[in-house]
């Protein structure tokens, strides 16, 4: 590919600004993984079905294997690496996935977490059926989903309690385990 065809892009990923010089055909998933070194986003099917590569772009979940890097120019992107606090404090969803055994091989997990994170923002108090619908764009071959549904349910509860204790400035224990969803 001649140098002249390369495009400069600038994007914000997990609050940090990056620039990259990429071919127009390079997928966002490859930009994240190969150019920015953020290998937490996994690629499972490369045709937009499995959902493993799901990231949040400008507030919406996208399959990063179906988005070109150049389309993410000037965009704000959140990936699994941005879920935990900078000091390593886990996001309630991460806590809940660990607690409920919501992952086995862990390959679909980053995409699943990002979808669930966006879903809980849209629907903070979902029932189990809504959770199933909410994560139905992400395939998991290991768990049979039940523990993932349990985990999202628990995370919703943790987040809502956290919000409540933010309001009431009490119950520090929950504040410690939960971190406000912010993607």
């Amino acid at each position, binding site marked *: 590919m001649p140098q002249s065809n390369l495009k400069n892009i600038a994007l914000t990923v997990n609050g940090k600004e990056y620039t990259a010089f990429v071919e127009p055909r390079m997928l966002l998933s490859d930009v994240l993984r190969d150019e920015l070194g953020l290998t937490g986003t996994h690629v499972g099917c490369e045709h937009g079905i499995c959902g493993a590569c799901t990231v949040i772009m400008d507030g919406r979940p996208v399959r990063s294997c179906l988005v070109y890097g150049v389309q993410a120019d000037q965009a704000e992107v959140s990936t699994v690496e941005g879920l935990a606090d900078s000091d390593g404090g*886990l996001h309630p969803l991460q806590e809940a996935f660990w607690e409920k055994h919501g992952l086995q091989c862990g390959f679909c997990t980053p995409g699943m977490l990002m979808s669930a994170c966006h879903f809980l923002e849209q629907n903070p108090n979902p029932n189990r059926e809504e959770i199933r619908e909410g994560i139905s764009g992400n395939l998991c071959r290991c768990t049979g989903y039940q523990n993932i549904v349990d985990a999202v349910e628990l995370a919703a509860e943790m987040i809502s309690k956290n919000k409540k204790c933010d309001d009431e400035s009490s119950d520090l224990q929950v504040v410690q385990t939960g971190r406000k969803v912010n993607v």
Partner: protein
Amino acid sequence: MKYIGKAMKRKIDPRLIKGDGRYIADLNIPGTLSAAFLRSPHAHARIQDIDLEQARKLSGVIAVFGPDDGQEFDSLPALFPHPKLVPVTQRPLDSVVHHVGEPVAMVIALNRYIAEDAIDLINVVYDPLPAVAHLDHAIQSDAPLAHQHLESNVAAHFQQSVGDAQAAMKEAPVVVHHRFKIGRVSCLPIETRGLLAKWDFNGPEPSLEVYAATQSQHEMRSILAKLLKVSENNIRVIAPDVGGAFGAKAIFYVEDFLVTWAARKVNAPVRWIEDRLEHMMSCIHEREQYHEASLGVTNEGKILAVMDTMLANNGAYVPWGIIVPIMTSTLIPGPYKVPNYFCDAKVIYTNTVPLAPFRGAGRPQAALILNRLLDQAAEKLGMDPVEIRRRNLIREDEFPYRTGLLSRDGKPQIYDSGNYGKVLSEAVEISGYSEWRQCQQEYRKQGRYIGIGVASAIENTGFGSFEGATVRVETTGEITVLTSAATQGQGHETTFAQVAAEVFDVPVENITVREGDTSLITYGTGTFASRMGVIVGTAVYKASQTVKDKALKIASEKLNIPLEVLEMKDGCVFSVEQPSRRISLGDLAHEAKGLFPGTTFPYSVEPGLEVTEYFAPEAASVTGMTDIAVVEIDPKSCAIQILDYTSVHDNGKLLNPLIVKGQVQGGISNGIGNALYEEIVYDRQGQLLTSTLMDYLVPSACEVPEMKIGHVETPSPLNPLGMKGAGESGTIPVPAVIQSAVEDALREWNIKVENIPVKPAQLRELMRQSKEFQLVEAIK
């Protein structure tokens, strides 16, 4: 027990949930090149001409290899030979291709984009040969041959027999028949296959490091050594984090050889990551079998005889022997007492992707056959399906139970232990079976069609031959466990730590488990056949015991206290009589290393607080399970909805119930896909029609139901902890229980559901035919 049997959260999770996993595609080794393969669009063809020059000229391409290079390659070794099998194994870059998707050429380039561009520049002239893909076609006398050098498409023809089934069937007062057409599925781990090969030419001999998404690093090392003609001593295979496998990654594939071979040729690290299209057309499939089966019972529903004729599709090559049809043929009797049994099995070559074990490995097919025949018999006798099963299950007091068949290892098949009646009763209880039967009648009055299915099955788990573990106490007091296991999500790092923690009485946090690396331990076999917990778990247990004994001896000599009054707890050895007289595990590890160079080793044991033990079980430990499913069918659209799902398993003594439950749930979801959604379809000429996840339907969270899981624990006498395997059992009864429930729901139409997967379109057709038939009968 303090640690074994506890539902402990997994040690590995914090890394994986933060996106810090390290899968093959994530490895960052400078200078790594990318490989891509050109794959055959034909099911059977001779390569007449191939032009690699345009591809070689593309900027960024390092090398292109084709059939000319393939001439020097050996065929893959034939694993699991069988006296009745005519084995054909794959030859890398052969000039004749035998299925769509077989590699024809390989490009090595700076990155995958360029490698795939180069693939497009390769011109091939194929001479297409007649191809055969479907079982019913392949067995015809004038069918094309899948391999031109063979006389027929029959890869193997064998029988299993107990008693005199034919005679007993003639005598049976009630005989029922059923046909089964079981479709083909893909293992489909969400991480595809992949490996990275890196040679080092600076040592005394060339050495190879391979990072591979494999279930079986030791097997891969031994096959690579053979094919590359390099000593095993100079090959290290590492399986880092592996994103699911389910059988797909137990096989050694031609790509595994080609990538390592190419890395040597181009003198640079080379990585290949399979894409999903390649996965569908080149990674093993399973399940496809046709059966015609009969069951003879007494008027009381007691089994007299079972006869089965099996056709099993083998695909184009034999990567793993004929394990799958052997497993099916030896497990059709399953948990039931079958005094007379006969199975005639033909394994057939076709121009399709090879079939080899996928989670369940021939057992879901076996479970389907007798359970469904029992349904027919119960119907004929007016008996409840649960009752006819109860009357035929092997009783608790009949173990160890000899079936009269030979196991896959050639030894008499003996079930070590079990309590199938209790498993069935628990399932009936948990599912609310009786209540659902009442509901069924109520719903029918409202025009709703509810069906209830029941299936009991077994799994022979924890096959040999062996696995090993090294257990070491570090001078910090921490314990290191090195095993021959490989994980693809089973949580070994937690369960094996629980085993060692139990022996040493130290917290699980103080134990580090390492696996998936041939440099950790000399020998090993791999993660398949639900065997890691049983075999590696026992090796860890035995090695831990031996290290503990050694530590106690050193402590006894060091503290001058008799062994009998010493105890190990919380990382220390102390005198029961005077607990202040104590020594820590770390100090004992230090003692075991000896004092200074030149001094005499002071203890009566061998130096080093480290022991390696291998465990070779004398036979498989057999698990039992019963599933009960309730489905509702919309009579107009024939859409099938699962209303209730119960699964009760006896996996022996559980190491970690949280993890076992996860394994069972995952297995059931694979089974649901198998039973209702997933099917790899080829046309008659061997063209793959389901090459994407748009065509091949993997169940999402909306298709997999809520599952009620129960456990019965019957310890196995074959290992000290009483363990049985748990990795695959979830998948096994699902196709049987779903097919059973669907047929039950449509009882009014009097149809026989013979297909797996069960699809609404088939049901509609069956119902239409049944109505027409009834109409014709009425007119008559």
